[in-house]
């Protein structure tokens, strides 16, 4: 069979290994901040991978993906807030299981409702209507005065993941407050999301999405209405982005409406496209480059937006297929 997929896997595996080990090497070298940077990197890679399910597999340019990160984040922020300061007993909890349940449910419902409406439109209308829904979430969060409104909300403690009975068996509970433990949790989540996205990509379901991306008319002429498949993809992508939001709230000890600004959705798109839209590991590479670039450029100058903007232009104008696309291309002889 065609060798390229295997090669991708090797390359992707290398990138993942590098992401996994670099912060530990840096930690060992006495630079603990890199654990922070890489935690952020991995969380954004999860969000970008979830977006790539829509963007690359299904060809749906959702411009409101940041909304799910925000919803996931508040699904941690609000229960922790109530547990810390009292009120709303039914909601209040430090339990990570509860946060995940809450975040996933809310994101799935939001994706279901807004997807059902958005997917009736096409092209640029789809881009704008997804953005509109995301803006609504933004202003909704701003209006939640109880939870800090515009200022956001501090998350005092990270989610606790207690496995019932684990202590009895002598397995220690996950200490999410320990940065490297939390990092490994995020990394495991990235692996899980990548695995599921890869599975979906090659499944019956994924093939319908890919076919509909290429030629919707033909898919209908073969007796399949792509609408429900797209809607499901929209919901799945929303759930994964919500998971990344849950992790983000834990990472930052902080949630705020600014996580939902449209520029954030744009950044996620940039990561997917930067890495290369047609590959599984593209979003991971894109998120890595984005985060590292942001870090290094901002260290050289506070005006790092200038080189960053130029880079954006260069990537779009000359780097078709993103970084992975460039790696794949044979050098011209």
């Amino acid at each position, binding site marked *: 069979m065609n060798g390229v997929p295997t090669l991708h896997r090797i390359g992707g595996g290398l990138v993942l290994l590098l992401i996994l080990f670099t912060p530990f090497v840096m930690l060992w070298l006495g630079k603990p901040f890199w654990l922070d940077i890489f935690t952020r990197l991995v969380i954004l890679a999860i969000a970008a991978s979830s977006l790539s399910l829509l*963007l690359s597999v299904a060809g749906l*340019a959702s*411009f409101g993906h940041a909304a799910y990160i925000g919803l996931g984040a508040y699904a941690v922020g609000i229960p922790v807030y109530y547990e810390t300061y009292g009120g709303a007993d039914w909601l209040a909890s430090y339990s990570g299981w509860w946060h995940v349940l809450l975040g996933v449910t809310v994101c799935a419902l939001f994706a279901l409702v807004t997807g059902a*409406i958005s997917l*009736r*439109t*096409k*092209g*640029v*209308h789809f*881009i*704008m*209507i997804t*953005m*509109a*829904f995301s*803006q*609504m979430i933004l*202003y*909704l969060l*701003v*209006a939640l*005065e109880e939870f800090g*409104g515009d200022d956001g909300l501090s998350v005092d403690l990270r989610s606790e993941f207690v496995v019932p009975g684990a202590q009895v068996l002598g397995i220690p509970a996950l200490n999410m407050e320990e940065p490297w433990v939390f990092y490994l949790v995020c990394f495991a989540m990235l692996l899980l999301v990548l695995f599921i996205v890869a599975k979906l990509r090659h499944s019956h379901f994924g093939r319908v999405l890919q076919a509909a991306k290429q030629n919707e008319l033909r898919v209908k002429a073969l007796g399949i209405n792509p609408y429900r498949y797209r809607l499901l993809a929209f919901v799945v992508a929303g759930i994964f982005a919500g998971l990344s939001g849950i992790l983000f709230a834990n990472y930052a000890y902080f949630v705020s409406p600014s996580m939902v600004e*449209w*520029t954030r959705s*744009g950044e996620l*798109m*940039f990561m997917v*496209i930067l890495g290369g839209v047609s590959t599984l590991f593209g979003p991971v590479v894109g998120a890595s480059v984005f985060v590292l670039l942001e870090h290094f450029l901002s260290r050289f100058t506070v*005006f790092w*937006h*200038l080189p*960053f*903007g*130029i*880079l*954006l*232009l260069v*990537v*779009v*104008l000359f780097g078709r297929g993103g970084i992975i696309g460039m790696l794949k291309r044979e050098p011209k002889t």
Partner: protein
Amino acid sequence: MDWTLVLTQAINGLQLGILLFLLSAGLTLTFGIMDLINLAHASFFMLGAFICAWATLYFDSFVVGIVCAILGTALLALIVEKTVISHLYVRDHLDQLLATFGLILIADTAVHLIWGPAGLAIPLPSQLQGQVRFGELVVPTYRLVIIGVGLLIAATLYWLVNKTRAGMLIRAGASNRQMLSTLGINVKLLFTSVFILGAVLAGLGGLLIAPITEASIGMGNDIIITAFVVIIIGGIGSIKGAFVAALLIGFIDTFGRAFLDTIFALFMSVDSAETAAPAVSAILVYLLMALILVWRPQGLFPPKLR
């Protein structure tokens, strides 16, 4: 209800609508004809304001400032079109979004480096500083100027698009892109001209509002999203649609901000009304867009034969 207040707000809504129209007109044309999503339209809005402010202060004349701003934005638009935008016409919307987002970052930083972070105020000639009285109603003169100039531009655009040969081409392009090349039109020239026209209109919008809000970095990034909402509601490529939708949104936004808290206070506590109202009035515009897209996926006035 106080009718002077309602009237004042109506004038404010009209002014906001006109401003939105200036921004959306170029956006809807570039979108309709070149199929280009141009976020960097926001930057021309800002650049128009900054160049005008700088020239007004430097030459001590608002009129010179306006002329400089128009020429300046036109020149910058020409450069940007030739170097970046013209390569984007054949790309998909995503590439366009990202590349023009990159342009925004560049423009914002460049303005910060040139004029500093503070922004620039535009001093108005004293004739424009005062107020005009209509019985009970007192309106700042300058706001009437904005409305007047905006309506004049709208009328000119209407004439340009509907009564001239260039306008015929623009309309043809907005409804059927293939037709242009079959008509033997210099498509490149048409695209460049339309892009510059749009940029200048955006720059005009920026310089008109700057005496009220000051020219500040990223001032266009806030309003560009609303302008996109306008062209989606109005129907992409339709000047008429942009005009109607801009006024609609101008009124809805202004009246929402002005009266929503009073309305909310009817059925909730004054305190919660005062915090809920701004959020809800901010959402109103997007809600309207979502509803209209569900009802008419192509917007209110889609150009025919798409």
